[in-house]
């Protein structure tokens, strides 16, 4: 992918068009799969903000994803469907609150501590879901009624049907992408990039870095919450595994897979990794062994990170400036 804006815009437009047209020939399984990929793409975008752009390697993204999903199920009344206009913000808000809590404590830690602390706090959420009545236990809970999406009496989309939901998810993905793109080139976004590259210099210049990082953390958590809302509505079922570190690890892998360290890299990585998972799960190829698909995924992760430290794109783009440009971890070792 070139850096020139018109070319990139063309690529993005083409991708949008392809996604928009896909349901016409995708088939039921395809539409379902791509919808899930889009939800994960949103989750990946949330992590790209935090890891790729600010340089905070968070291993707890699943918590925000899961909390929002659980909130959707828990807040939906038994008797009548909720309107997505209030249900989504409420769920996202709850995810944001947990992000505020997690972030305020973990951002004060440095380097590896941050990874461990975010992992631990997301496990805390997992245990709440798994062990307390709030969460409903390891069996999970079902969404009683799919929320409505109406405006002035008109139903904008029937979210319980596959195709309308697909387009709804596509719309949300595009909006989140656009929002983050604008955010990253704003003053706030540039300050975050500066914090990633050299926090010391930012502080010496006069930026109080803690509030910036905390704000980024909360925004990231809320975007992850958006993905969680979509997931809950689509699947109609939530269980504590949504908050497991498997999810966190998977998303982390998605953003580094393509090695582009950009928003579109995160989306591409989400799609690519999802396809990879489907590949390993496929009984057509692996027969009975397909139930051990984690082995293939694990081995792939190891090989991908070992051989391609800058992701797949590391192959194609080897100019020194590009190398300088984005890889957040390059050469930086935490104390």
């Amino acid at each position: 992918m070139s850096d020139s804006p018109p070319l990139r815009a063309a690529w993005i437009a083409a991708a949008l068009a392809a996604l928009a047209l896909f349901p016409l020939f995708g088939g039921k399984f395809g539409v379902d799969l791509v919808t899930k990929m889009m939800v994960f793409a949103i989750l990946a975008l949330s992590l790209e903000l935090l890891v790729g752009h600010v340089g905070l390697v968070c291993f707890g993204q699943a918590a925000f994803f899961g909390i929002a999903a659980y909130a959707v199920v828990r807040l939906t009344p038994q008797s009548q469907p909720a309107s997505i206009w209030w249900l989504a913000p409420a769920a996202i808000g709850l995810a944001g609150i947990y992000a505020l809590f997690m972030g305020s404590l973990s951002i004060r830690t440095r380097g590896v501590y941050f990874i461990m602390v975010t992992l631990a706090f997301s496990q805390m959420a997992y245990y709440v879901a798994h062990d307390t009545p709030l969460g409903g236990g390891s069996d999970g809970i079902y969404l009683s009624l799919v929320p409505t999406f109406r405006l002035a009496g008109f139903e904008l989309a029937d979210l319980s049907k596959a195709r309308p939901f697909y387009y709804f998810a596509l719309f949300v993905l595009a909006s989140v992408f656009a929002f983050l793109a604008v955010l990253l080139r704003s003053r706030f976004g540039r300050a975050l990039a500066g914090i990633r590259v050299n926090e010391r210099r930012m502080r010496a210049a006069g930026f109080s870095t803690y509030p910036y990082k905390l704000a980024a953390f909360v925004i990231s958590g809320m975007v992850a919450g958006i993905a969680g809302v979509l997931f809950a509505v689509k699947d109609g079922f939530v269980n504590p595994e949504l908050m497991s570190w498997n999810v966190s690890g998977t998303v982390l892998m998605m953003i580094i897979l393509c090695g582009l360290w950009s928003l579109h890299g995160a989306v591409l990585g989400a799609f690519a990794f999802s396809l990879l998972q489907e590949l390993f799960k496929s009984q057509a190829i692996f027969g009975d062994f397909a139930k051990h698909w984690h082995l293939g995924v694990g081995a792939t992760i190891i090989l991908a990170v070992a051989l391609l430290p800058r992701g797949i794109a590391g192959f194609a783009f080897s100019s020194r400036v590009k190398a300088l440009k984005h890889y957040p971890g390059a050469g930086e070792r935490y104390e």
Partner: protein
Amino acid sequence: MDIATFLVQCFNALQFGLLLFLVAAGLTLIFGIMGVINLAHGSFYMIGAYMAYALAPAFAAHAGWGFFAALATGLVIAIALGYALEWAFFSFLYERDHLQQVLMTYGLILVFEELRSILVGDDVHGVTAPDWLSASVPLGDLMSYPVYRLFMSAVCLAIAVGMYLVLSRTRLGMMIRAGASNREMVQSLGIDVKLIYRAMFAAGVALAVLAGMIAAPVSSVYPGMGNQVLIICFVVVVIGGIGSVRGALAAALLVGIVDTFGKVLFPQAAGVLVYVLMALVLVWKPDGLFKAT
């Protein structure tokens, strides 16, 4: 809570804490000295437990010393495994940044879990403690405490003391601590740092495997036990301070107390209390309670 129950919980807390220390010490040393964060450390604990299960029938016939033979066998396998893993995999992680280490060891967890699933299946297993350790010590009129658990605590304590002596009193310990602060310097002194690292890593693995082996009769053997232990160990390491063995001990005991008494006093909150503890410690000391060894 009457005195007997209180004593029982104290012993439980001690036993849990000391066991955690065994696993956490390996984790914190490997990170503190070699700079590698190893998510798969919990998998070694799981491997230990499954080894106890697998080796039990082989040594069942020999009532008395069979148990120790199984332990010794397990340790030898663990050290060999540690050596091999360090050479084949972990030595490549030293120069990598933390994100890569996290991802690669995360992939390793997946591989370990699936290998276990393929080789031994997904069932939950029990392991019986050896007969001569199966008695119970009476505590007051109504309660008694299993000897085996006291045995576990004794083993962990002995190892803790041994570690302290090695690290602070021996030349090897000095080299290890020096290697932690300045790898190049130690290397230029002619000491083979690579060998030390490999040995250290193997020792860390052995500690986790041993912990799993002796814990097996108490906690039973099930998939996911490795991951559970790992997360708690992370909490221990964060509270205690990365790289500090002393901190790991203090934190492990603290976590043992909070978790054990928490489960008894607030069963609803159960597993969450340990994280609340971590949150409180972080508010007060973001770098953990102790500095590195």
